[in-house]
């Protein structure tokens, strides 16, 4: 028995388990990059995680299983119901929150490790611990602010603070200065606490000035940060699984961040610098007085039913109104009449890239009807009617990013609840175009009414 126990607790065995674990992570991640294998990929990565956790629990030095069980139980009790009950529309907030707790965990572990050593850390352990503390803390607080903005607990508009760049720079300098002092030999825990607090403030200050529309990029960036901080913790704790798992996320998160920023024609430094890309936010509201043309369901139904090609451009508003099923029914009705219906999906429609695809897939919209922005834009002049449902920024010519340029279609019908500005807080000149008509009301009700009118024709 002791032989078996010692075999499983042998360092080589545990390292071998870790190799299995991160191989599964890599295979899993590769799986998630293709629609066919995505779900299996996620399960593969989850199995890898289970292997890594079990291997770690076998390490002889790991103790206090009672408290570990308490922590895991609490985490499970919070995480599972949250993940099960969250609506698809609120997914981005959920990812932000899960990312935040990950960063928080890194910062707390770094703090505990510092306290354990009494502040007397060898350099090769101290530097990664300090790095993990700073980045983990930024990620925790930044993600919470991102969550608050997406959940609309905090205003989505950029919150500009006086001298914010200077303050951010100063906070970062304070954190680094304290870190250098500790690395140089100081053992004061106060310095470590100053690091945590400065990084916490920095996390807040970093995300607060960023507009809601840039939030997906920010979450992705913070996701990469958390990965890097986890890798740093792995170096400090001499744990290969942590290093590889962390850096995989750090690398993939950076790429994703870049892809998202590219999709929005935004540079990451510009986003981090705050505000929404050079667009003067105050000038937008001055145009509210301009006349718009409103229409009703029966007019819209006639236009749609006698069109040859219709492009539906959904946005977050459709998701909020839970109108995706109604939209699919309307499309089916139109198709019965020989109208070709496609969906134009902006890369950042919804609140994250791919968010809208998830929502439409949930409503059983055929995959081949979903067109990406770059594919649909050249075809728009041949399309008779664009039906914009709860989208605003993604069709706004002044949004400062590539848009689905629906104004080039024959007619544009915009379903909208009210004349308020979009998530980015910018007025939309599209509303005032001659070929634009607005259909006011709840998206779901409006779509249902249009479907009814189409059936009557």
């Amino acid at each position, binding site marked *: 028995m002791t032989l078996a126990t010692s075999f499983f607790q042998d360092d080589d065995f545990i390292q071998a388990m870790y190799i299995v674990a991160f191989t599964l992570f890599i295979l899993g991640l590769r799986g998630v990059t293709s629609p066919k294998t995505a779900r299996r990929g996620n399960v593969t990565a989850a199995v890898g995680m289970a292997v890594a956790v079990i291997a770690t629990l076998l390490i002889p030095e790991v103790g206090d299983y009672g408290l570990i069980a308490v*922590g895991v139980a609490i985490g499970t009790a919070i995480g599972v119901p949250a993940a099960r009950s969250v609506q698809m529309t609120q997914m981005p907030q959920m990812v932000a929150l899960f990312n935040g707790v*990950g960063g928080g965990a890194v910062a707390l572990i770094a703090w505990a490790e510092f306290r354990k050593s009494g502040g007397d850390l060898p350099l090769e352990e101290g530097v990664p611990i300090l790095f993990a503390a700073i980045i983990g803390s930024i990620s925790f607080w930044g993600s919470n602010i991102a969550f608050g903005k997406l959940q609309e607990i905090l205003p989505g508009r950029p919150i500009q603070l006086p001298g914010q760049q200077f303050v951010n720079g100063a906070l970062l300098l304070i954190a680094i200065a304290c870190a250098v002092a500790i690395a140089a030999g100081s053992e004061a825990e106060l310095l470590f606490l100053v690091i945590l607090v400065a990084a916490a403030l920095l996390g807040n200050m970093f995300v607060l000035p960023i507009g809601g529309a840039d939030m997906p990029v920010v979450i992705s960036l913070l996701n990469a940060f958390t990965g890097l901080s986890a890798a740093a913790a792995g170096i400090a704790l001499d744990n290969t699984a942590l290093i590889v798992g962390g850096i995989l996320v750090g690398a993939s998160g950076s790429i994703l961040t870049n892809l998202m920023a590219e999709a929005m024609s935004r540079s990451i430094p510009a986003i981090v610098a705050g505000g929404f890309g050079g667009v003067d936010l105050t000038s937008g509201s001055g145009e509210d007085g301009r006349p718009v043309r409103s229409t009703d369901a029966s007019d819209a139904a006639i236009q749609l039913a006698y069109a040859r090609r219709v492009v539906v451009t959904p946005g977050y508003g459709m998701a909020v109104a839970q109108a995706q099923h109604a939209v699919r029914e309307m499309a089916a009705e139109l198709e019965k009449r020989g109208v070709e219906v496609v969906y134009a999906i902006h890369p950042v429609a919804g609140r994250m890239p791919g968010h809208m695809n998830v929502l439409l897939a*949930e409503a059983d919209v055929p995959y081949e009807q979903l067109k990406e922005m770059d594919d649909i834009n050249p075809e728009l002049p041949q399309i008779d009617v664009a039906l914009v449902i709860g989208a605003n920024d993604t069709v706004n010519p002044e949004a400062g990013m590539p848009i689905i340029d629906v104004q080039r279609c024959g007619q544009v019908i915009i379903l909208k609840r009210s004349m308020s500005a979009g998530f980015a807080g910018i007025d939309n000149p599209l509303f005032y175009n001659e070929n634009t008509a607005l259909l006011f009301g709840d998206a779901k009700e409006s779509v249902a009414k249009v479907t009814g009118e189409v059936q009557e024709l």
Partner: protein
Amino acid sequence: MDLVTEIAILVLGAFVGFEVISKIPNTLHTPLMSATNAIHGIVLLGGLLVIGEVDGAFNKLILVIAIAFGTINVVGGFLVTDRMLEMFSKKPEPKAKADE
């Protein structure tokens, strides 16, 4: 393990991370972000490693919170990703599902 080996692992891991996901359809950005998010829940291991080595109620408390946070990250992250991807997998042909 010595630092240089660890840094070698770090650098190679970074390249693997870049390569594995450098090509990916827009559609899968959200699920991929969510899956990578779940993977950095591996910080949980850090909590497990350190909690047995510290003394004092306060240190233990910090680490129990860290373990709880890490668990939320892992469990919640993978579950949410699975829910997102479930919607893709039921899509194509109902037949394809029956073969599995």
